[in-house]
């Protein structure tokens, strides 16, 4: 077993808002090895994006504060690094692809300039070799006639093409860790299939550790090795993809898997999860999922469950898994 590229331990991120202090990330721990993909699954507000931003120390300030925990990149602590040091790490060692490619691309610069920038910055290239490498990079993400595309501006490209350019910039260094935050949500189905294949391909070629943030369980089934399910700032269940899809331990994971309509299966009614997503500013004592959980016991409403072993390499924060 190789040492993990990224190891997050007991990460605590708070958001100070008008409605009080929110535990956006509450004791999150996971690690990702070289060439491995971790799916970070959850609904909006579950803390998955905030976890990723905390790793890069990009959580919005002054509202967000990292109160504790540890983020080790190849054994180096990131939480104590200076802003200057972090700037050298972002893009070079840890790259990020966001949902909307236009939030990563500058509309007034050509694609060529934007792809050259990380190459010049992180690899010290200039002149002809720089341009040649930029063309190679664009070609490697499946952009046809890459040389002529250097002069194009983002608005001249389709959504899928823009996301490919962002992908090219992300692997320019190439990084050790790639964080993909819902990168295909704004893409059409057939383009999404193309892009997922490209990401897997890039990952294999550069042995990247990848964190894939999504609310789509289908994507997790397709491209992830392990999965961590988040609810109200906590990882409620984690483990190998096959184990979690085959035998989900936490009721939330199980209901989530059952609530999605399946192609080729005819069911009269879908299994619905009752109630509404949790209000993070007014979480109940005990387990945050208890108010919606069909299996909730008295204990669930009183005490927050710790992490229990639910199977080989599978953990669950649910009292149902408490050893007798």
């Amino acid at each position, binding site marked *: 077993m190789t040492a993990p590229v990224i190891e997050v331990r007991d990460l605590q991120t708070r958001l100070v808002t008008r409605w009080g202090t929110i535990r956006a990330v509450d004791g999150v721990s996971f690690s990702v090895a070289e060439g491995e993909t971790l799916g970070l699954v959850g609904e909006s507000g579950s803390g998955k994006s905030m976890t990723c931003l905390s790793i890069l120390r990009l959580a919005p300030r002054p509202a967000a504060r990292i109160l504790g925990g540890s983020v080790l990149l190849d054994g180096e602590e990131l939480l104590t690094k200076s802003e200057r040091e972090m700037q050298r790490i972002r893009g070079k060692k840890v790259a990020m692809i966001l949902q909307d490619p236009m939030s990563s691309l500058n509309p007034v610069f050509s694609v060529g300039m934007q792809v050259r920038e990380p190459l010049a910055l992180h690899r010290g290239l200039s002149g002809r070799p720089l341009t040649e490498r930029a063309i190679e990079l664009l070609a490697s993400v499946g952009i046809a006639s890459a040389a002529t595309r250097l002069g194009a501006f983002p608005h001249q490209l389709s959504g899928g093409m823009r996301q490919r350019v962002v992908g090219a910039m992300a692997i320019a260094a190439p990084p050790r860790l790639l964080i993909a935050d819902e990168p295909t949500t704004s893409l059409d*189905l057939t383009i999404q299939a193309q892009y997922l294949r490209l990401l897997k391909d890039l990952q294999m070629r550069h042995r990247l550790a990848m964190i894939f943030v999504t609310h789509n369980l289908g994507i997790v089934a397709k491209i992830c090795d392990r999965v961590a399910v988040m609810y109200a700032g906590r990882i409620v269940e984690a483990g190998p993809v096959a184990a979690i899809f085959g035998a989900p331990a936490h009721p939330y994971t199980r209901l989530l898997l059952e609530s999605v309509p399946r*192609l080729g299966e005819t069911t009269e009614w879908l299994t619905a999860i009752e109630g509404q997503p949790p209000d993070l500013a007014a979480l109940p004592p005990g387990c945050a999922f208890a108010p919606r959980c069909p299996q909730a016991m008295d204990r669930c409403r009183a005490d927050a469950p710790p992490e229990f072993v639910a199977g080989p390499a599978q953990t669950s924060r649910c009292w149902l898994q408490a050893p007798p």
Partner: protein
Amino acid sequence: MSLLEATDLTKHFPVRRGVLGRQVGLVRAVDSISFAIEAGQTLGLVGESGCGKTTTSRLILRVEAPTDGVIRFEGSALDGFDRDGLRRYRRSVQAVFQDPYASLDPRMRVGAIVGEPLVINERPSASALRERVSALLELVSLPARSRDLFPHEFSGGQRQRIAIARALALSPKLVVLDEPVSALDVSIRAQILNLLRDLQRRFGVSYLFISHDLAAVAHMSHTIAVMYLGKIVELGAAAEVARRPKHPYTQALFSAALPLRPGGGSDEIILAGEVPSPLDPPSGCRFHPRCPYAMERCARDEPLLLPESGRLVACHLYPGA
């Protein structure tokens, strides 16, 4: 007789340039499509962005007038309706849109939002209105006190319930559902899909269900129409189309739908390239530049939508039964 029948429905948008507004092109958003919506049933419309799904729904809602073709509602053509007829038609056909944050007026209380169609169309007395609004809120499982609250006090799923209650206020015969669950959290989607199905059972309302979520469309629909660049390429019973797609585009689309188990959906067809511009659609079959089975004649002759294995398919692979 079908509730709604569209025949050779076409919508072209002219593209104009310059100060004189000279027409320089034509976007064939919807190009001669025919389909029917049966009473009490759901027609699912799937396809990627730009395929004409939303234009089709706007034609049905009569927000746009078709360039060509006829829509018949309960047997009579929409074009022949006078003011009163059109008014009655608009009462019978309602819509629920994707984003419940954008489709509800943030400055109106929920009671006023849900009651507005009633006030405009039926002028009920204050007490009758209160009663009707309460009944509608109960129908979508919202507490009666919701009427005095504003939309921002609700979560996405609850807002979509408000939008559904409003759409049902006038007991419509057809509701256009344009991506009704796409903006909602995963754990909420099943609630709303179940609610829509329950309402269909109870009131016999028909749905036009538009979505890019193929599994949701297959689950909700009786019939599925697959669109590509303004054309219907496959039309048939939902279970058939979803399980045994015939058109190469439908096959690719359904194979790109994500599996629900690791290792599921292995025979993936990855299409080359992107959807071409509807300003200048490819000759012959519009799908031929991306089709893995494209033959010589596909670039030349446009395939007709013909019967094949119990559904309609527009593809030269099937020699027209």
